[in-house]
């Protein structure tokens, strides 16, 4: 592992990769600050800018955007009480209260420092867990992959905001979209309406940009209430000795909770921050202060969502399976650059695998250095009026969608899914399962087909392997539990998560 890490640092410390890591974390923070543009839209928007880069540099930059958005989201939550991205929704509660009491500076400061500590600890966890899971994944066959994807989609539906039934419908809709195009084994054209543009299937990037980018723009335009930035001085950014005393345990607990939640399929960063908030409130000697500006209510969740970003990379790098919409966009980035994440990535492209990991240590340090002195800049970005900001975001999404394949068809797909995404949001259908299922659909079909061919059509193959039997059993158990009353627990999570409905993914 240490040899790998040394190789990774040799890649990450090359001046051009340092530059791309810096660009990624800076742009990620900026996009995280802007309400509505979360990691999915952010990575998708900037993906075309990486086309000409070396694969390792491109992935380093995209990963930087991903965890950079987690840092930026807290600024918006604290200053305008609107999450910059969904995982910062819980920070609104105490972070904004701190800001209203003239303590915006320490809230932003502990958020940045906690994020740095958690992000770094998360990368340590990723470094340990990913190679271990990779060794296990080498034993996976089609039946295990099929079961893993089914399990992932069921957990995603279970953890989604709102109704599980609707989330399952959304996941099925995404899987169905994934069948559009030429079938890989036979070359049979499915749902293409004789349009050559659809032969390669519906592009995942335009769909993600539509659902999460344009859908959010429309949602923001539709709202009649305007966001107000807290005025006045931020105060000193560095937390006081008393703030530290109250926060350090919350940061460590948030790091652990975040990393483990990050391993789960679904909106893991959102869940991580909500669970962390609940734990902090429970263990606090002053639970009555929560909701009125308790610094632990900022330190814990903000640490958790950054550690979750690292945790979410474990299934992607070791199994090749994205567990959340942002990692699904990252997967698209890998594929565009000719890389296949999964068990063989570490062996075949150690420069990318270890280079990305090493760059995350550097990127987290960059974010800390960036966030404290540049907070004034990010506040000014927040004050850009919607009348200028929203049309500019539309412009970037249009160019971004077009440049994926230099095709107008992708722009149309994005616009259609922008309108559909707006309708989904307004009617309580969570769009996240659509995006993930669209990516996982072709993998699921291939695994299912291979498993059935191997077993001569016998479904027993899915129960013969302990791994696939366990995963399918867990998926079935979750559905039964949900029907039997677990919905209450899930709805409590969903209620909190749904605060962020409106596009922050």
């Amino acid at each position, binding site marked *: 592992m240490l040899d790998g890490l040394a190789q990774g640092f040799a890649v990450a410390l090359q001046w051009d990769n340092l530059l791309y890591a810096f660009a990624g974390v800076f742009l990620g923070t900026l996009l995280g600050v802007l309400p509505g543009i979360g990691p999915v839209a952010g990575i998708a928007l900037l993906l075309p800018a990486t086309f000409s880069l070396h694969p390792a540099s491109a992935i380093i930059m995209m990963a930087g955007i991903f965890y950079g958005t987690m840092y930026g989201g807290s600024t918006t939550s604290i200053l305008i009480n609107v999450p910059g991205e969904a995982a910062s929704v819980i920070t609104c509660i105490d972070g904004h209260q701190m800001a209203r009491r003239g303590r915006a500076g320490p809230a932003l400061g502990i958020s940045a420092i906690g994020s740095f500590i958690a992000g770094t600890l998360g990368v340590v966890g990723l470094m340990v867990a990913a190679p271990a899971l990779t060794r296990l994944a080498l034993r996976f066959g089609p039946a295990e992959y099929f079961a893993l994807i089914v399990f992932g989609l069921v957990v995603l539906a279970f953890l989604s905001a709102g109704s599980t039934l609707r989330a399952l419908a959304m996941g099925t809709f995404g899987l169905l979209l994934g069948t559009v195009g030429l079938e890989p*084994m036979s070359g049979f054209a499915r*749902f293409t309406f004789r349009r050559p543009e659809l032969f390669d299937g519906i592009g995942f990037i335009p769909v993600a940009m539509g659902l999460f980018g344009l859908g959010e723009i429309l949602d923001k335009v539709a709202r*009649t209430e305007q966001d107000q930035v807290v005025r006045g001085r931020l105060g000193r950014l560095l937390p006081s000795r008393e703030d530290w005393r109250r926060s350090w345990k919350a940061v460590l607990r948030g790091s652990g909770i975040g990393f483990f939640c990050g391993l789960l399929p679904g909106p893991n960063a959102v869940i991580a921050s909500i669970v962390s908030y609940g734990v902090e409130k429970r263990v606090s000697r002053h639970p009555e202060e929560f909701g009125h500006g308790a610094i632990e209510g900022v330190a814990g969740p903000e640490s958790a969502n950054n550690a979750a970003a690292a945790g979410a990379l474990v299934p992607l790098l070791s199994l090749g399976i994205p567990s959340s919409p942002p990692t699904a966009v990252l997967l698209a980035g890998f594929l565009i650059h000719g890389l296949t994440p999964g068990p063989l990535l570490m062996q075949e492209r150690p420069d990318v695998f270890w280079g990305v990991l090493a760059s995350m240590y550097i990127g987290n340090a960059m974010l800390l250095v960036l966030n404290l002195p540049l907070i004034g800049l990010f506040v000014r970005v927040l004050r850009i009026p919607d009348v200028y900001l929203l049309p500019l975001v*539309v412009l970037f999404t*249009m*160019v971004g969608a077009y440049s994926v394949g230099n095709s107008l068809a992708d722009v149309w797909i994005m616009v259609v899914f922008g309108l559909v995404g707006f309708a989904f949001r307004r009617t309580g259908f969570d769009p996240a399962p659509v995006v993930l299922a669209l990516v996982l659909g072709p993998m699921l079909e291939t695994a299912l087909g291979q498993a059935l061919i191997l077993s001569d059509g016998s479904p027993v193959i899915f129960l013969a392997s302990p791994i696939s039997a366990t995963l399918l059993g867990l998926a079935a158990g979750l559905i039964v539990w949900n029907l039997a009353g677990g919905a209450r627990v899930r709805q409590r999570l969903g209620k909190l998560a749904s605060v962020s409905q409106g596009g922050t993914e």
Partner: protein
Amino acid sequence: MAAARALGLLLVAVGLYSAVEAWARMPLGLPSAPGPGMLPFALGVTLAALAGATVFQRASEASEAIDRRRTLVVGALLVLYPLLLPRVGFGLTTALVLFAMGRVIAPVTPGRLALFAVASAVVAVALFRHLLAVPLPSGPWGL
């Protein structure tokens, strides 16, 4: 709730259409050799069933007031953008759509908004078409 039901019914229609299309036009194959229609058929039936169940479900939907006119106009402008793009070119389309969108979003003086729209379009053309070499449509006037 009416909008959620309508969307649920629309998804039922999508599911049924997919299932029928897969059944009628795609080889379903056998369990030992699944054909290209097998998964779309199964997914179509599943989607119709799940979406059908959501139609009868009570669930929350966004209840806050929305500005319908603004939303409709911005939605229409989003559709207009790819329609105009190949016909009048990227630069002109961008300037026109940005100006119109700004007018709908907030009351800003037309001159200021026009300056913003034109400047954004010029910078975007310089950045994307010339610097990053994205082959954006240029239309009959080369804009």
